């Protein structure tokens, strides 16, 4: 019980307390750099500005001090409920993401995931589908044309991309042979020989490859085993978050702000938090599924422990491994957050019909194709993996 509480506090403090304010700052700074501006640097506390790092705190204070306006004719209960429904699933997803492997200290095993459930990935999908209600209700309850238009667009986009998000991952489930996120991450903590299939299909005599060909290895990450799946999934999950270039539901220039237009103060703040919370959550999911999660490339857990334990003892080696893995995971998440920011400020907004066409006419057929190509591939060259 205390173990669960500690793990919970760790992720909530690191992600919600540490990463979230930092991301709002990075977002502003990166957009400024990419547009040749200086960016946020005004908020100061007795003359100290810290490169604008005080802005997140100022933002929170500002949101709290805004008036709480509920527009006339709005459904007051649902208007209040919508931001909560949008916020809760975004935070809940953190429970199933492993931020480290399983470590043995003497008799006890410490597994660095809050809820090691059988169907971790399905839980992510379920949470995403619940989040749709936040968008639908927000626009509907606020009795505004723009809000309603935005919420219809948002919900149609979210449900469409939910299907393809699931289907584009099936290839990865097949490769890893599991729906459990810690298992998928642990599966990627090894490497494979690029030319191993020559051996398994009988093109090379004997038990092993020649030494120089055996060195030609890649970490067994989803991005190498499922390159198409990675591209499709990244597109879908970014569209699911409704951030640019998929922000047709709230496109400032056509719908003003979309479904959360009639929201002010902390009610808006919860929508905003949910949207920014999803950036690291997306980074963590993509890192876990396709970039090896906590795995350090070419240095599997056993290798590290065996190497360090010789000099410093088993317990120290395992602890060191734990710290390295968590740091490695956070680095990957940071890289993916940067990637999302860069995409957000590079690509122009899709038109709404393009968003829907992309989903139903491109990604859906491609992801179904990906499933069967992966299936045939696994059956043909089973030897590549193992």
């Amino acid at each position: 019980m205390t173990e669960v509480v500690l793990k919970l506090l760790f992720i909530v403090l690191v992600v919600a307390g540490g990463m979230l304010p930092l991301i709002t700052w990075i977002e502003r700074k990166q957009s400024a750099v990419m547009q040749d501006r200086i960016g946020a640097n005004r908020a100061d506390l007795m003359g100290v500005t810290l490169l604008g790092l005080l802005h997140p705190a100022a933002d929170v204070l500002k949101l709290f001090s805004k008036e709480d306006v509920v527009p006339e004719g709005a459904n007051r209960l649902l208007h209040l409920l919508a931001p909560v429904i949008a916020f809760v699933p975004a935070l809940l997803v953190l429970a199933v993401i492993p931020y480290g492997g399983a470590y043995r200290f003497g008799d006890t095993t410490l597994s660095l995931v809050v809820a090691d459930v059988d169907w971790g990935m399905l839980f992510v999908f379920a949470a995403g589908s619940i989040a749709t209600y936040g968008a639908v209700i927000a626009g509907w309850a606020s009795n505004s044309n723009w809000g309603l238009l935005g919420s219809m667009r948002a919900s149609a986009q979210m449900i469409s991309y939910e299907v393809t998000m699931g289907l584009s991952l099936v290839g990865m489930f097949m490769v890893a042979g599991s729906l459990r996120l810690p298992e998928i991450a642990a599966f990627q903590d090894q490497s494979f020989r690029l030319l191993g299939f020559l051996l398994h299909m009988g093109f090379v005599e004997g038990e092993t490859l020649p030494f120089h060909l055996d060195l030609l290895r890649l970490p067994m990450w989803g991005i190498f085993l499922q390159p198409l799946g990675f591209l499709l999934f990244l597109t879908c999950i970014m569209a699911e978050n409704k951030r640019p270039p998929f922000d047709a539901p709230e496109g400032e220039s056509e719908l003003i702000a979309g479904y959360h237009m009639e929201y002010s103060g902390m009610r808006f703040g919860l929508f905003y938090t949910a949207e920014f919370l999803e950036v690291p959550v997306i980074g963590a999911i993509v890192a876990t599924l396709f970039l090896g999660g906590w795995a350090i490339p070419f240095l599997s857990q056993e290798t590290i422990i065996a190497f360090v334990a010789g000099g410093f003892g088993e317990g120290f080696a395992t602890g060191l491994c734990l710290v390295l893995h968590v740091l490695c995971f956070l680095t990957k998440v940071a890289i993916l957050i940067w990637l999302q920011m860069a995409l957000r400020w590079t690509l122009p907004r899709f038109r709404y019909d393009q968003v829907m066409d992309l989903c139903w006419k491109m990604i859906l057929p491609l992801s179904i194709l990906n499933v069967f190509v992966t299936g045939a591939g696994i059956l043909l060259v089973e030897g590549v993996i193992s």
Partner: protein
Amino acid sequence: MQGEFVGLLLLLALALVIAGGFLLLHRLLSPRREFAEKLLPFECGELQIVSPHQRFSVKFYLVAMLFVLFDLEAVFFYPWGALFRELGGYGLAVMAVFTVPLVVGLVYEWRKGALEW
């Protein structure tokens, strides 16, 4: 196994407390200066010309319907994908037979123009 759900429930409770706390704190801290014009739904400074109580295009229903049916297809894909190694070639054949009608359905929708926006 059920012990694993304690973390989920705790996080759910925590998320609800955070959201509720934020809203409550905002309620206590924020100023209240309401007047009739401020409460009007935002319409670029104009009164609402068209009521938001109007009907939507049927396209949204078509997308939602397609979503439900393809979501169910995906639901069968997930356990199949995780079990693929055990099922092998038999599994691939089973899933191919399952997918053909759905691909036919997708092509039909496409030709009927249900996917056009």
